[in-house]
């Protein structure tokens, strides 16, 4: 009983949204906006449910004494404090911004910086792990792009390197990107049609 209703609702809503693009009727546009607002509300509520679920999972870990329970405790504490401070002071208050600026942003930035060291080390050991033509080409490409992006120390900009870098970025890279974008677009269309036809039911119907 539940499956046919959810499928019917999904199909109906999708058709209405799609028709809004082609038929500029006021009632249809109003209905479309209303449905989109409902989707936004549902998404916001889903985020809240996610946060609650996150708290519950880690709470269970802490409560059952699982091996990673300490980190779950830290998470719960941090969640609680942040929620309390931001809720009390406001999201744009100094404490909130301080927590964000000095805790969240540095932590995430540091993880990104480690990625730099890892990529450098992977580049150094690339040919040692896999010595073939493609690996060599990849390494040379990386070198050219890196060296053509910024001026060289004690040398300055190298026009040849800049030109090669621009060519690599704008031609083969963009070409690949275009292909990806086209594939993504076509896949999105097919997925949308499947949902509209009821073939796919990602909503659990």
């Amino acid at each position, binding site marked *: 009983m539940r499956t046919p209703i959810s499928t019917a609702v999904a199909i109906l809503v999708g058709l209405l949204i799609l028709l809004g693009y082609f038929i500029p009727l006021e009632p249809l546009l109003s209905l*479309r*906006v209303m449905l989109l*607002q409902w*989707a936004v509300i549902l998404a916001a509520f889903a985020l809240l449910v996610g946060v609650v679920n996150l708290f519950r999972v880690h709470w269970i870990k802490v409560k059952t004494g699982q091996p990673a329970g300490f980190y779950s405790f830290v998470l719960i504490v941090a969640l609680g404090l942040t929620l309390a401070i931001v809720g009390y002071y406001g999201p744009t208050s100094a404490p909130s911004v301080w927590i964000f600026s000095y805790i969240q942003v540095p932590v995430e930035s540091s993880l990104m910086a480690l990625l730099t060291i890892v990529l450098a080390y992977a580049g150094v050991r690339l040919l040692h792990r896999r010595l073939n033509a493609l690996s060599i080409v990849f390494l040379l490409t990386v070198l050219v792009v890196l060296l053509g992006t910024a001026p060289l120390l004690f040398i300055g900009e190298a026009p040849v390197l800049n030109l090669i870098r621009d060519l690599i970025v704008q031609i083969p890279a963009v070409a690949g990107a275009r292909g990806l974008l086209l594939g993504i677009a076509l896949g999105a269309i097919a997925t949308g049609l499947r949902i509209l036809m009821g073939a796919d039911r990602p909503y659990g119907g």
Partner: protein
Amino acid sequence: MADLRCPMCGKSNPPQSEVCQYCQARLKPLVAPPSTENEPEPSSDSEDLFPAKDDALPNWLDGLRENDEPRTESQEEQADEDGVETWSSEEEQRLSSAFTFSSEEASDTDEDWLARLTGDQEHQPEDQAPLQDEPAESSASAAFLDIDEVAGDESSSEWLAEFQTSSLGLEETSETSLPSDDQGEEVVTEGDRPHWLDLIRSQQQKESELTAPMSSQDEDLEGNQIWGDKPVDKEGESDWLSDIGMEEGEGELTIDSKDLPDWLVESGAFRPESPVESEQAFPGWLAESDLPEDEPAPEAGEDLPDWIAASPAAGSGEINKPRQDLPDWLSNVSEQEVDQSGLPEPVESGEGEDFSAEEEGGLPDWLTKLDATAGEQTPGRGVPALILDEDEEAFAAPGVDELETQTDEDISTVPDWLTQVAAQEDVVEGAAPLDGEAEPDLATAQLPSWLQAMRPVESAAPSAPAAKEKDKVVEKVGPLAGLAGVLPAEPEFVHLSKPKSSLVKLQVTDNQQTHITLLENLLAEEGQAKPVPARSAITSQYFLRLLIALVVFISVIAPLWLNRQLLPLPEPAGVSTEVYDFSQTLAGLPSGAPILVAFDYEPSFSGELEALAAATVAEAVGRGAQLVMISTNPTGPLLAERLMTTRMADVNPGYVNLGYIPGGAAGLLAFAQTPRDLNPFDLQGTRVWEVAPLASVNSVSDFALVMVLTENPDTARSWIEQVQPALGAAGKPMLMVLSAQAEPMVRPYYETNPKQVNGMISGLAGGAAFESISGMEGVARLYWDAFGTGLVIAAALMLLGGIASLVLALISKPDTSEGKGAL
């Protein structure tokens, strides 16, 4: 005379033959028996030569008693109508002379009638040519009735006339009556042939068929030919009488038996003692014709005729042995040569001709043999009617025994001769196997010659014994359980059994076996947990990583710490077009126009994008734009706040932070259509849509510019797909501030026509170029030296690592090849 060709086997036979010498098939058809409807009743005036008519006596014999019974015309006509074969006058004369009794002799006793017969024969003319036109029958007994060959005589004619008027019930007429002896020879035409003669002949023919082998037997016995085909001369002396050894003056046969003539009794053909059954169709001597198998065949004597000498019985030589008890006429039969040219040679058979030559009380040998055989046989123990197998006997034992018992007891129901004959036939059939193996428990029977002659060719040839019942499957279920050789009650498929599993050996080579073993080992090891070797915390790679990190860290920190600005910013003339367009777009903003700035990047990318955002926002603020911040990322509003509070503090521009838009693309679409409804409050909870700068904004197209700051290509695409159409319709630009990794995915939107992205800045280099064009020194300039140094050091490290790897690879290959060569 042309030979007769047998219709069965196609072989030639003598013209006188009645039966084929090879296959014993009749060459000439039998004469239809005359009807007995008009059989006259025995006359009361008939001579009492013979005893009263008895059922035990054949009809012809009864007819001998009657005389002076003329045959009426009606009877003769009836006889003709019945198809009785007409006789010639000569034949009837002979017969009449042979069987004629005078009135004077009618009063004689029975003992004298035969004497008269013999006397009549003596007076038969010698020149009376025997009638040999008619082919002689195979049996001598049939010759007796062969009236065609009977010569006519006066004395015999009377006697013959008596026959005509006797038992057949024919009244003698003055016209057709047979002449008496005194009257001389009587000419009997074919039409005047007495009916009783036909009956006699037909009856004798029947008897001859049954007693055909016996004819030779009888002949072998001292040459007596009781039934002969010998023609009778004209004088009335019947050859049949001469064949049986009737001499002059002799032949006084005394009939001792009450019912039978003595000569028959003395000849052994009938045994008064033998139980004569009323139902018996054949005489007793015929019933006792079985001979023991062990009796050797008599040797043929020199004076015996050929047909007698050819028989094994004659070979025994017993034929010439005189018998004491036999009358002279019977004993002298062997001395007379009988013209047996018309008689067929008896069929020789190994058993049937095995006549015993034992003497037993003066009886002929063949009679003694018969007696011996009869005596040997268990009384009442004939051949069982049903021969059963062992299993069958077990099943049907009670019934079979009972049957045999009944068979033994009810002798009266089954004549002895029939059982004995059947026993002989069974013995004969199963007594001659091809392989010569005789069953030890059954005695081989000896068939008489006459019986052997009756045997067909295929049965005469020894045939293989029938398949033993033991070889056949014995039925175990159903009503036929215990019987063998029957159709199975249950079909074969009922008895299903598991099919035999055939062992199929697959031929596997050694190499395949090796592979199989290897695969089995691999599969066995798959389920086993391999012990993880302990790994040391500090390895060479650990130091390498530390080294690389240290080098990169120093290359980056040192310029920042030194703040030398050694590396110059890109030249404004040499900046990329997208950066130029971005700059130009911002330069074209009207003053006080609200611009929407979307902070959709992650905090991890804040180091790169804040440098770009700071420059662009500062430029926009410098152009008088009112900032409206929004984000589809939950951390976006805080990033905006962070930027505004840290980087733009000194500027302190007014901005509206609308906060977070949930729903991803759907939220953007909704915001693009009804931004007021989607985000009616800012982060402080203030209604900003009623005050400037958002008071005049009803849709996203009302913004002068939309600038999206993101590191994710999908976010950029969502903005472009959901929001840009509204902007494009309104002619409002969209700018992108991207991370260096997202540039390739967004550039296609920049390079389209019309452009979906009016300008973009990607990475720190773009920021530096923008700052170069804008003529400001922002965060990008601060990071530019460290950025450049770090890139160069990283590239250098990679290059060194690659070179080192190549060299190591080149060095290791020659060592491997040398190692292989050494091996």
